[in-house]
């Protein structure tokens, strides 16, 4: 019998990974957010290059800088975790190695994110 499902319907059926286009969508969403955030970050770093501890500390403590820094951290760590997952799935074929690396990838992203966000909050709240 002919297959009556449309390609769209099949995608909404979520495919073999049961996550459909979600990974792709999140990769693009974070990529889009990354563009202005990275431009902000690069300008911030350049404006602080060679500055003293006090100047850097004060700048990082100002609310809008801290807020955008935290958004940057969230966006890039989520984005890089999704990206690295694909790289691992592409090249690592042994089941145990792959699972180990996929777990390490998630831990790495979460550790970098938490440590960086904590640092910004500590500076902001007067540490």
């Amino acid at each position, binding site marked *: 019998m*002919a*297959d009556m499902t449309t*390609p769209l319907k*099949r995608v909404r059926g979520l495919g073999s990974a049961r996550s459909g286009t979600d990974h792709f969508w999140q990769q*693009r969403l974070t*990529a*889009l957010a*990354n*563009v202005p955030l*990275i431009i902000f970050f*690069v300008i911030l770093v*350049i*404006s602080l*290059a*060679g500055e003293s*501890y006090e100047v*850097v*500390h004060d700048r*990082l403590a100002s609310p809008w800088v801290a807020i955008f*820094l935290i958004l940057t*951290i969230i966006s*890039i*760590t989520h984005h*890089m975790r999704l*990206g*690295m997952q694909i*790289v691992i799935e592409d090249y690592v074929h042994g089941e145990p190695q792959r699972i180990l690396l996929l777990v390490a990838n998630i831990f*790495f992203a979460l550790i*970098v994110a938490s*440590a*960086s966000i*904590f*640092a*910004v909050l*500590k*500076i902001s709240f007067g*540490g």
Partner: protein
Amino acid sequence: MSQVDAKANRPLSPHLTIYRPIITMVMSIVHRITGCALFFGTLLVMWWLVAAASGPDAFATANGFFGSWIGIIILFGYTWALMHHMLGGLRHFVWDSIHGFDEKPREMLAWATLIGSVSLTILLWIVGLIVI
């Protein structure tokens, strides 16, 4: 669609080592390499922020590293990787809008990514050095 004999008609791509490198393919690989370099580069961002949160001594250590010649080389490479990956990402957005797949636009976009990333990196460092 599900009736297609997936195994027999599956297209096979030639192996990397017998494929003459072309600009679009190289830029595609470079997008992946820069993405992975940036992945590990976040450790430096984390170090910088945690050092600034830890106090003047830790901050001086981090700043000392970033100001050393090896630190400067790494940061210069970091800047380029970031700019290249960002422009490469914008290139993906063009493709996502179903544009830029023909031979001419494809090659144009690949060169634009490369030339753009090198120019932006040099520009940013000139600005950065003036600021210092």
